């Protein structure tokens, strides 16, 4: 289990959040963890939905007006 990689995408607007998460995860492998920080609900939806559809373990937590998505690569 490696240290999680944090992607702070709070200042990004669509379509950057999803594309930057996809790009970062292309370089990762099974067992790698990512923590994605977002403020935009729709970006939370499409990042989490994509990661789940890819078969990774996804956990979404809301912290005030921010969201934290934890992705463990399968």
């Amino acid at each position, binding site marked *: 289990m490696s240290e999680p990689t944090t992607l702070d995408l709070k200042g990004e607007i*669509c379509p950057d959040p999803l*594309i930057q998460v996809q790009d970062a995860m292309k370089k990762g492998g099974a067992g790698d963890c990512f923590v994605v920080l977002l403020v935009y609900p*729709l970006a939370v*939806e499409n990042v989490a939905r994509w990661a789940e*559809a890819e078969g990774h373990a996804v956990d979404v937590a*809301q912290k005030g007006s921010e969201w934290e998505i934890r992705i463990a690569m399968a």
Partner: protein
Amino acid sequence: MIKILALGLPVGLVLGYALQRGRFCMYTAFRDLLISRDATLFRAYILALIIQMAIIHGLDAAGFLTVRHFAFTWLAAIVGGSIFGVGITLAGGCSSGSWYRVGEGMVGSWVAVMGYGLGVAATFWGALRPAAGYLISFEAPYDMGSLQGLTGLPKWAVLAILIGGGGIWLARAPRPKVFTGWPWTKAGAAIGLIAALAWVSSAFIGRNYGLSFTGPTGSLVRYITTGQISAVGWGTWMIMGVPLGAFIAASWSGEFKWRAPAPDRMVKQLIGGIMMGFGAATAGGCNIGHSLTGIGALSATSLLATIFIILGSWLGTYLFFMRR
């Protein structure tokens, strides 16, 4: 004026509310088909489209509404739709998407909407008018402009194919999984009912039309810059309700927040907005006027414009975001 306000503004308010809760952004719906093979939001769009289609053609058959297809300005639909599609990728949202984000405190969308208004006004009445006029001059005969006219099928058969086919596709969808807002089923049903409500509300003032964003954005700019009160119509009031409704939805759910992307990103949003304005004003509609209302009215030009809006949004996403 009071009657137009009383009919238009509430439709905009509930629409803005539903767009925000449903996260109903059609740019995202189109883009996710390409970059994450995810059709969740696209399903919401198709559901809204077929619900509206069934209701308005039912009311048309009952004599309550008059649903007419648009003129078949095919070259304007292709070129305008493509430019609009590329524009929404830079603007960070389609026209309804950008308008509702105004109410969520997304400052970049304020910039995009300003650009959109400028682009629409320049195309309707200003410097870009000759270019649009040339493209619009390519018009197929009116009778060919409906999907039934184009295919030679009876209208009821076209409706049955579209509503039945769409319904079967949606019924086979996986269970909706939601992380933040409404599931696609609720979002699509709400938007479809509001789209039909727009036709009914408009019928009371003799406006045979549904939801529309491009014309009203232009009429708002026209009123603001020239003071011409006659420019303010049902759609102008409706569109002003959208950011207000979205603001109410975002505030109640604790999602309202002032936020802005980097300065260079906002300049791109301005340019994207201007492209959206020119594209939509040339094509005769945006992702709402064509993709929801126009296809709902079985307009061939709207289907063509929508196909090129989708292709344009894929091209823009690839060129500006994926290929870096």
